[in-house]
Each structure stands twice: as structure tokens, then as C-alpha cells.
């Protein structure tokens, strides 16, 4: 079997504070003394996978969370050492680490660069201090500038900033100001995420109790379109529903998700995928440590994908990228169903959906309806 390009994901579940909209697995605050134990477990988990490692070409590593930048970089260095012992990392050309503005010192950035991190993903979210406060973020506008400056000083040449729109009280002018400030940072990559009300968040409770009212559909549409327009004009190329970059700075790691490529993932709550099987680890950090210290796998559960599942994942996520979905990747047994579904949907979504040379993709306006179209395409 030909080796596939694959990713490695490492989940560091610690933050200084927990943002009220966030449903990713993370713990606000941590016990410095417990960190060695956690990272020992992580190293051991990596070792569990050494036997299957040779089946894949790992070309990306993503260290996310949580906020991995608040941890002493020596732990990250140690993880890299364990990784390189067990996995062939010679193809890993994109190594990303998530940081928050104001939460990483210059010297730490330098260390991270030295140990091999070559891409930073910065949780900017907004430049408006009121909105940052509303989002319960820990940073202010000025922290953003200092962090980006330090990143450049440390030699990082590939920086992403995450932005959030569709925030209550965010009007069109604050969003446009955010976008302009972002462009002025002269970074390589921008992700714009819409604020989504997820269950099990404080935001969900506040929306439910009507203490917070989310912006309506028309408004979020306007904000999305202005991002497309403003970023497009300034040389950012939209290559996915939520992602813009300068040429050749697309995020290779995220492409693994959209292409339904394998990704081996470590750490509590991490979701991985290989050999047609999705698995996810236990969320609770203590449980995670317990399992591993007892020589047990921290995988909470897993699911073997059927051909139909794979076809549907390819359809739903494939159309989110500018290249679209390469239909030759659809499992043979489901090709007829998929072609049938496409034919049906071309009638309905003809203005937004392009089918040509075994590629199925959305137009720029089609990005606005990616979910509605994905639903209709499901076989």
C-alpha cells in the first residue's frame, strides 16, 4: 500500500483562563508540579504508536490546545525528541504551535523556533478591547502587536491569526477595523471563524436564558462577505471556507482534515484517524494519565468508517476547499451513489456548485452555503 501524507496532532489541554464560548477540551490553570507527569504520559502514548508509524509520511505537526505557548518550551522540546525517536519526521515541513497574544515571552518564542516550530497560530480573535473583554479573552489589543513583533524577531516567517466574527454587539464597522488592523500586521495566513454557540459552554446558557442575543443570519452573511472582499483586495487568497493566505502559505495540516487524510493524534480529547478508523481519547486529564500509567490505551472509543461514511466525509469537507473534492477518492462502491447525488444537486445548486473533470467544488458565493449543500450531497 502506498504511503499517504499524514499529520500529527498533539493536544495540550491547558489555558490561563477558559473563554466562555470555547468547547474545546482545556483546563483553566494547571499545577506546575503535575506537568512532568502529564508530559510523561504524552510521551508514553506516542510510543504506543511506534509500530504503525512507518505506514505514513508525516509532513505536518500541529500542537494545539488549550494554549501550548503557556507551557515551558522544554516540555515541547522533549515531546519532539520522543516523536523523532518513534516517527520519521524527515518530511515534516510544517510544524505549527498555537499561542495567545501576551502569553508567550520573547525568549520562549526563540526556543520554540530553535527546536523546530516553524509556524505560529495566534489567537487574536479581535482588536477591539471591548469585544475581547466580552469574549472573556485574557489579552488586549496592544498584546497582539507585541506578540507578532516578538514572533518576527524570533525568526517566524509563517504566522496565522485566528479571528472571530458574528459576535453580539460587533457591528460592521468594528469588524472592518479588525480586518484592516489584521492586514497591517502583514502576516501570512488568516482564519476567520464565526462565533458558534456550542452546548456545554457558558455562552450557550446565556443565549438560552436570553441574556445574550446572537446576531441574525443576514448580519453574519454581511460580515463574512466583507471579509471575502477586504482580504481579497489585499492579496489574501481564500482557499477554504474559513481560511485565507498569501500564496504558498496555505495550512497543510488543515488540508489533512479536509482531505480526510490520516492524522495520528495524542493527548486528552484528541481525535485521530488512520486505517479507516476514527478514534478519540478520553477528555479528562487525570483519567488520561491514569490509563497510560496503567499501560492502557487512553482511547475512549473508535469508529470504523464505512465506504458510505468516507464518501460523505469527503463530500462534506472536500467542497470546503477552493480545489474542491477529487472524486477519484470516493470509494469505488459508492461512486454511483455520489454521481447520482451530484447530478441531483447540480439542478438545485447550479449557481454555486461546479462539477468538472472529476472535481466537485463550490464557487466563492457557494462557500456561503457550504453546509446546506453538504447536507444535500450526503448519500
Amino acid at each position, binding site marked *: 500500500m502506498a504511503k499517504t501524507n499524514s499529520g500529527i496532532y498533539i493536544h495540550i489541554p491547558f489555558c490561563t483562563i477558559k473563554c466562555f464560548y470555547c468547547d474545546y477540551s482545556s483546563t483553566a490553570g494547571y499545577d506546575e508540579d503535575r506537568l512532568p507527569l502529564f508530559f510523561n504520559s504524552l510521551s508514553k502514548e506516542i510510543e504506543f504508536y511506534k509500530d504503525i508509524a512507518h505506514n505514513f509520511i508525516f509532513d505536518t505537526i500541529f500542537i494545539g490546545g488549550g494554549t501550548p505557548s503557556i507551557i515551558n518550551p522544554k516540555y515541547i522540546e522533549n515531546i519532539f525528541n520522543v516523536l523523532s525517536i518513534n516517527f520519521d519526521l524527515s518530511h515534516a515541513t510544517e510544524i505549527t504551535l498555537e499561542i495567545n497574544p501576551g502569553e508567550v515571552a520573547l525568549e520562549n518564542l526563540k526556543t520554540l523556533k530553535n527546536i523546530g516550530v516553524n509556524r505560529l497560530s495566534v489567537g487574536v480573535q479581535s482588536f477591539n478591547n471591548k469585544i475581547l473583554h466580552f469574549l472573556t479573552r485574557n489579552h488586549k489589543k496592544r498584546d497582539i502587536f507585541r506578540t507578532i513583533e516578538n514572533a518576527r524577531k524570533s525568526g517566524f516567517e509563517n504566522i496565522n491569526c485566528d479571528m472571530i466574527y458574528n459576535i453580539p454587539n460587533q457591528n460592521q464597522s468594528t469588524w472592518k477595523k479588525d480586518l484592516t488592523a489584521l492586514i497591517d500586521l502583514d502576516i501570512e495566513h488568516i482564519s476567520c471563524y464565526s462565533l458558534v454557540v456550542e452546548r456545554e459552554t457558558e455562552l450557550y446558557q446565556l443565549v438560552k436564558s436570553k441574556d445574550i442575543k446572537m446576531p441574525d443570519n443576514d448580519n453574519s452573511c454581511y460580515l463574512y462577505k466583507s471579509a471575502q472582499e477586504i482580504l481579497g483586495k489585499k492579496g489574501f487568497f481564500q482557499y477554504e471556507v474559513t481560511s485565507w493566505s498569501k500564496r504558498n502559505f496555505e495550512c497543510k495540516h488543515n488540508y489533512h482534515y479536509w482531505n480526510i487524510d490520516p492524522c495520528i493524534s495524542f493527548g486528552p480529547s484528541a*481525535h485521530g484517524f488512520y486505517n479507516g478508523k476514527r478514534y478519540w481519547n478520553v477528555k479528562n486529564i487525570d483519567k488520561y494519565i491514569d490509563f497510560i500509567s496503567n499501560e492502557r490505551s487512553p482511547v475512549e472509543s473508535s469508529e470504523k468508517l464505512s465506504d458510505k461514511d468516507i464518501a460523505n466525509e469527503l463530500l462534506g469537507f472536500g467542497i470546503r476547499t477552493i480545489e474542491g473534492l477529487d472524486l477519484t477518492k470516493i470509494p469505488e462502491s459508492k461512486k454511483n451513489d455520489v454521481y447520482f447525488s451530484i447530478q441531483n444537486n447540480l439542478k438545485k445548486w447550479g449557481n454555486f456548485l461546479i462539477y468538472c473533470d472529476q472535481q466537485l467544488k463550490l464557487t466563492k458565493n457557494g462557500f456561503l452555503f457550504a453546509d446546506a449543500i453538504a447536507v444535500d450531497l450526503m448519500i
Partner: protein
Amino acid sequence: MTETSFIRNFCIIAHIDHGKSTLADRLLEETETLKAKDMKDQVLDSMDLERERGITIKSHPIQMKYVDSKKDIYTFNLIDTPGHVDFTYEVSRSLAACEGALLLVDAAQGVEAQTVSNTYLAIENDLEIIPIINKIDLPSARTNEVAQQIVELVGCSTDEIIYASAKTGKGIIDIFTSIIERIPPPQDRSKHPLRAMIFDSVHDKYKGAIPYVRIFDGVIKSGQTAKFFTHDKQYDITEVGHFILDQVPSKELRSGDVGYLLASIRDVSHILPGDTITSKDNPSKEPLEGFKDIKPMVFSGLYPTNSDDYDQLRIALEKLKLNDASLLFEPETSEALGFGFRCGFLGLLHMEIIQERLEREFDLSLVTTTPNVRYKVELKNETLVDVDTPAKMPLSGEINKIYEPIVSAEIITPKEYIGNIMTLCQKKRGKYKTTNYISSDKAQLHYDLPLAEIIFDFYDKLKSTSRGFASLDYNLKDYEISDLKKLEILINNEPVDALSIITHSADSYHRGVALCSKLKELIPRQMFDVPIQAALGTKIISRSTVKALKKNVTAKCYGGDITRKRKLWEKQKEGKKRMKSIGSVEIPQEALLAVLQIDSE
């Protein structure tokens, strides 16, 4: 063979949940028809749906042997009766097969409307009635009060009432003794020419339609040729038998017996409940009394969500009809919904049951239209036409008069809700008849009501206005002239036949307004603005707009959790399968039934 004097044929009359099935179980257990360990709870309700809803849809007779203290062996035939207002005629045929009835009343709930109407049916059929108060061990039992209600209802003395708990077995022996002593045995008329009444039937894949019969006169055995009074088909009888738990063949069935017969009857419509079977060789001149050709009262369109499933739906309906002669269907075409069937049902519950069975047992996804009644329309040229779908209502210029079905309704309620119920009945165009008190705090109201109002949302309103205590029973009374109008709904400027309704003039305006605003809620935003209009004739009386959807994308970072998103898409896709495309507008099933949801307050 049991001598006629040792046979007792009886049924149980009870309201839903008053414990009929539990009592039946105890009788089966006590007579060792079934060992306790073999019993699933409530043997008689054999369909899954019956078990879930706790009601009996089809009746199942069962034969038991009971040995009394003198060591005499009795044959008991328990003929189970369906327990809902829709099935009154089936109940009446089951009753006609018996000499006695156990009237079972819940000690906490007391007498309900259905109990009353079925008891009257039993009295009309000259049945000996044994009143039983069940669940006397409940903390909430109001045994004395309920006893008074029963005395009022059947005119017995309190001494004649048996106090029981089917659950614990208390009173069961008294019930057996009463069955023997108080219910008369059937008359022995085995020397007369054969007369057997059909009271039910089932369909068997291999054996065909199997009539359940009560033999009144003569003897029936295999080799005879059966002749029916309602049609001229004849069938050679190949087997007769009793019901023990399953069908058990026997040499013959004699006057007084209850059993079944096999005659390779393929066409279920040849077995009509209430019809009389006689024999070709020595036929009886007259049929037994009481046959009625039962007609459906409620109509609704059934359409496959996926038009490719049309044939499957037809086959499924044909199969259901084999066991349910009262189900009627004929092909219908709707501009909005494509090819489907207009189906006739005995009532709303019957309709729901059929729809649910089609979806569950035949795995069909269906779109159903708003139920309606059958109107009689007199045209200007004096011809009379039946209209059972609003889409077929002639243009108002061609209509002379419209007649609508009126039912006489009986409502039993604790007296504190009388005011609320009267207000409700008035709103529903009811005509007040009488009020009787059946005990110091329970009243019986009689109203004439348009059936169309009853199938609208009357039952739910009655329940909510009486906190669940009032009960309803009704019978078709007559057709009366009424001032009715057709209200049309236009979606995206096109009239949608499946959404049009027939409504009384006085209600037409506010129903139009309410429908427009309800549809606006129920129709999801599309890619373009969708106007919704209500029209009376050519006049638009109301309008609302479903605004276009501008964006439908979750712009979130998914990380590795791809599967969760896929499952959400797949689930939404399933939901969309239940939508119908009308023109280019996707309409969910709930929207087609919107009229049932609008508040007529």
C-alpha cells in the same frame, strides 16, 4: 363438545387504561389457559402498536375452560372488543356475539363517555351486565362514588357490583361465579338452518381471509358451502375450529359456539363484520339483524415522500386492508405532492394507527395531508356530489348548497369543567342538547357538533380545558346544510392543493390569517423570498413572507472531529427527506398539517 348450557359468551367493556387487558390476563391465568410463566403481559393486545398505546385495535376471541366447585366444566368465550370511539361498529358486532358483558370501571377514574356508550350498546343487544369496579386497592380509589355512577348507568343495585383488583387477583373468583350464574347460556338452536354472524376477521398469508364467527343457529362443519347474505359469493368450508390461544381445528361449531372457519377466501371484502353466513344446502331465509355497511368518516391524502415508493405504498395499503376492511383508499394526484392515495378512515385514531403502521411495518416515509370529512355538495344543476378532499370542491358559482356531517356527541366530565366545555362546544359550532348528572359530581353533556370541528383539534382542546378528565364519544347523526367556504393557500404565488381547507364562513378569515403566520414559522428559509398567501375565491385575505436565506455555513475550526459534523449533516439530510418540494419550495411535513396547529382562540 360442550353442551350449550355450559357455554358462556361474554366480553369486557372498559375505558382505555381501566384494566381490561390485565383482567383478561388474570382470567387466562386462573383457567390455566396460559401458565403464568408463559405470559407476556397483556396477551390480548398482540400488535406492537396496541401494546405501546395500551389500546386494542383488533379483537381477539379466546376460549377458556373453567372447572367450578361442583366439578362442572364450562367453556368461556371471551370476545375482546376494541376500545376506542372510532371502532364503535366493531364493538357493536363483538357485543352481538355475546350474552353477557363485564363492565369494568376504574375505581379512581369512574365512568367515562366511552364506557357509557358501549354499555348502552350492550344493553341494546340485551346483554347481561356484570359491573366490576377495578383497582380498588389504589390509594386514589373512590369506590363508593364510582359505585353510585354505575348504579345510575345500568340501574343495578350496589350489591350486584363486584369489587376487584385485576392486578392482585382480588375478586376474580366472584367474577367467575357471576359469569356462570348471571350470564345466560346461549340458546340451543342447532336444529335450525345455519346462521353464523361474522364479528371480525384476520388475514393469513397462506389460508386467506379468516372470518371469526358466532353461531346462532344450526351447525357448521367442513365440507359445507358457505353462503353470505351481503354478496353472492360462495365458499367451500375446509376447516372450522375454536380459539384456545391459537386457532384449534374441531369437528364442527354448533349453535352457541364462537370460532373461526377456513374457506380459502382471498378477497377480504367478502367478509364484512355483521354479515350472516348460512349454508347453501339448507339456507336460512333471513339474515341475523344488525348488519351495517360501515363508511369512513375521516379522509386524508397519503403520499410517499419519495415518489419512487408509490408502488410500495400501494402494496402496503393493500396488505393492511386485508386485516382492516374499514380502510378505504383510491389513487389521487396532487399538483403539489404528486401521486398518492386518498384514504378513508373510521376516525382520527384509526388514521394515526394506519399511518404509523405504514411507516413502521413497511418502512415507508410518508407525507400526509390535513384530515377532512366528506361533504355532500348540491350543484346548481341539482346533482349531488360527495367531496372528500378540499381540492375537489367545485367552484363556488356552481354550488347550490353544501351539507356537512353532524355527529351527536356525548361528553362526560366532572361538573367543574362544564362551563369550559360548553364554551368550547359553542366555539366549535355545537348545538346544545341536554345535560344529565350521572352522580353528584359527574355530568353527561349532549351536543350536536360538526364532525369537521371534532377532527380539527376538538379532542386536544377538550382534554386541556378539562385537565384531562372529560371524555368524548360520538356517532354520525346526519348531514346538515352549512355555510362553508374553501380557503386556499398560495405559496410562491402558486395555489397548493394540499394546503387548502374547507371552513365555516365565520372562521374563514381568522383561519386564513393564522395559517399564513403559522406557515411562515414552519417553512424554513429558502434561497429566495417565499410569499405565503391565503385566498377566499379570488380575494387574498392574508399574506406573509419567508425571507431568503443568505448564508448557511458553519465557519468553525473542526480540528479532527470530522465525524461529528458528518453525522449532523446526515441527520439533517434524513430530516429533509421528509420534506416535499412544491414548485421550488421545500416544505416540511409539519407545514402540511399547519392547520391543525393554528390556535383557533
